[in-house]
């Protein structure tokens, strides 16, 4: 009986162990696990602080990370939220979940990509691009604008991710901001009528376009980089370089108010905002565009001066997204199934 008892006691001790040990930091992230984890491991090596990473799950929509942060507001478990876009960071600010923190490492990062009050700081960015299949879109005839989703010659050949989630939701809200309510609603209606298929995630768009299920789709630069690295027959267009411009989606580092390891949280944010991390994200599989000038990037990667960017007021877009998620976008996505 004694070994059995010992086994039960040790299991119980292991089971009841709670979080917030000294020398660790809890990081929630909506950035893909495969991209975020190497950065966290590097931070662990440099500082000796253990990172407990809670990544998001994009594809099956059971993310709930932001919701988990909202639900845990009274007694947060997270110290830092590394957001894949600034809109979720802005929502956390509006709900009083984030704390202001001006990191010394933020020097050199353009101010327009960060919250003026310091609740979130933007760094390395992705862009919302059109990924096309080179076998289905001959050279010179590839779609160049988001309005090509409405073009009858591309009927049934375009796809995009569910606009209720991830960066596509930011794109949708930014579109409403850039084009105006009526025009944006017309775009969604006309694209849908033209046979644009709504898929579950950006990763799914990448796979569908790469496999030739669809000729082109709206996705992010990191997904495109993955497909290119895998040797898929795909090409990338930064859309609307002559019109509204391409949507840039910076990462955002957010310090959670009253997190259990606030000091370590600040250290993690200081690390995230360094030029070294921007360089690592540019050179890594994520192929993210550095916001700082002067950070070395791999050959062929676009940098900020190469892009015509869509003008975005993050605070306004965040408010718009909350309204759209319960209204127009919810109804639109319901009709797509």
């Amino acid at each position, binding site marked *: 009986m004694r070994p059995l008892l010992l086994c039960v006691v040790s299991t119980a001790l292991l089971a*009841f162990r*709670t979080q917030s040990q000294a020398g660790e930091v809890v990081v929630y992230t909506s950035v893909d696990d495969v991209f975020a984890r190497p950065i966290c491991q590097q931070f662990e090596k440099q500082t000796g602080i253990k990172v407990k990473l809670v990544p998001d799950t994009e594809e099956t929509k059971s993310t*709930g990370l932001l919701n988990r942060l*909202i639900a845990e507001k009274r*007694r947060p478990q997270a110290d830092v939220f590394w957001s894949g876009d600034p809109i979720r960071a802005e929502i956390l600010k509006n709900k009083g979940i984030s704390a202001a923190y001006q990191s010394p490492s933020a020097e050199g990062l353009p101010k327009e990509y960060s919250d003026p009050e310091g609740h979130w700081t933007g760094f390395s960015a992705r862009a919302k691009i059109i990924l096309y299949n080179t076998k289905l879109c001959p050279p010179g005839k590839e779609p160049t604008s988001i309005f090509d989703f409405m073009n009858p010659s591309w009927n049934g050949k375009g796809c995009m991710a569910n606009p209720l989630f991830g960066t596509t939701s930011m794109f949708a809200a930014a579109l409403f901001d850039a084009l105006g309510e009526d025009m944006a609603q017309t775009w969604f209606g006309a694209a849908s009528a033209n046979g644009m298929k709504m898929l579950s995630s950006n990763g799914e768009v990448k796979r569908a376009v790469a496999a030739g299920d669809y000729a082109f789709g709206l996705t992010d630069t990191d997904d495109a980089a993955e497909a290119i690295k895998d040797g898929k027959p795909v090409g990338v267009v930064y859309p609307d370089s002559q019109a509204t411009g391409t949507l840039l989606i910076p990462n955002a580092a957010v310090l959670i108010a009253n997190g259990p390891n606030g000091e370590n949280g600040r250290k993690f944010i200081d690390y995230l905002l360094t030029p070294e991390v921007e360089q690592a994200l540019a050179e890594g599989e994520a192929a993210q565009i550095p916001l700082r000038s002067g950070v070395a990037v791999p050959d062929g990667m676009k940098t900020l001066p190469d892009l015509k960017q869509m003008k975005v007021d993050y605070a306004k877009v965040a408010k718009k997204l909350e309204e759209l*998620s319960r209204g127009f976008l919810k109804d639109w996505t319901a009709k797509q199934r």
Partner: protein
Amino acid sequence: MISCAILERQGKWRFVVLAAGLFVAFAPLLPLLWTLRDTSNLSGVFDAGFRAALLRSLTVAVAVTIIAATIGIPTGILGALYDFPLRRLLLALLLLPLLVPSFLWAIGLSMLRRAAGLPPDTILSGFGGTVITFTALAMPLVIFISLAAARAISASQTDAARLGGGESHLFRSVAKSVLPIGMSTAALAGVLTLSDPGAGQILGFPGAASEVLTSFAAQYDLGHATGQCLFLAGVVLLLALPLTMFVAPKLAAGLLARDVTPTEARGRRRLAWIAPILFCVLLAATTVLPLAGFVQPLLRETPWRRALAEVYRTLGNTSAYALIAAVIATVGGFVLAIAAGRDNKLRATLLAALVIIFAMPPALGALGFIYAANVSPAELDPLLRSRFTVGLELALHSFPIAAIFGMRAIGTASPSWAEAAAVHGVPLRSYFRKVLCRWSLPAALVSALLTALLVTADVSSVLLLHPPGEASLPLAIFSVMANAPEPLVGALCLFYVAGAAGILMLGLMVFHFARPKR
């Protein structure tokens, strides 16, 4: 000193233990009911989007029920009546889909479709793919219940039917007897699909459970998600209750010991050749097809090292959750089984409650724990925000399996043992330790292994409750599958399936070698 005889007598303690056990099982739902005080959470719950999603879910459930019943019942009967080479192995392999997360099978089908160059509107995706995935999970349930029901017919009855009209007559007679329980199981398996969001979401046919997660994840609306979840649970309850009322008494009686020789599988019969063919076809459709999807990207690249690192990172947590859940579920299930004893009414009531618990959406209990943790002081974190919480929630959802194993073990123990122990003044504690525990040990071990496998396949509860940095392997697959390279996802899925198959074989070996010999 408490007499051992109380185990074979009526007593109030039985009601008290059963009521307490079931209260604990339903307790995580109580905080959710608190949210209903704000009626705005319920307004708009049944909107057009949710209605359409529910209709999709019901369509899938009906299709799964029809297919699982049409194919599963005859297969189960053939498996019970006829012996053929590798019968036990094929039966065990047919169980495999039941022990892996449904989303894993959906990933496999999705990969296979792309590898085969099939367009997105083929049978491997959308409605067809979702039905195939869920049927793969429902089929083992129907086959094994039908097989057990057919084996419950006495050998003398099957011999008589055989003599009276040959193999076809025997098959028809057995089918007539098995059909009600087989159909009910298929319907119940169909109902179970209503609470599973993964497959439909991946294959482009999202149902009501996906809609709940949409409210939770995209609209940051915990109250609305809870309202929808409770509504879905109501639908599940409405469908499961009549089935449960029908199945429970039959199952309760079937779990007791019977003094008859059960039907033995026999070889070299006219219909015997159909069985292995049917088994192999089913195995190909439910298991080999998705596995082929995982293997295909590995032909290009084999990232074993990276996949192994991921397995290594998550193995400890996966095992801890499975172990905690298996221990709690097995202990809890067997305690309830002892409380129900041999009383048919108590056993039927318990079984009805167990089926309802099993059919409930897993996210429901997890949401309850989140609510409870939020309003509780930090001192309760070890109970509400730890690995134990995850294990407990998984156990509360899966203990019906252990309880059924326990009822079978208790039901087949001889009543005279407790009576004899009482006459000789054996203390209850000694009787438990030396007789009842030893008798129940094989069933408890198999139940613990099965529970461990089943809870490991659960993603919803772990996703919502896991402490930071303590993800399980299925959750890790769930997290990386959108953006990780296909070979890595394929390798991780293969590792999971191989692990599940290994534990399944171990369970069968334990059952084979440790079961009491007649």
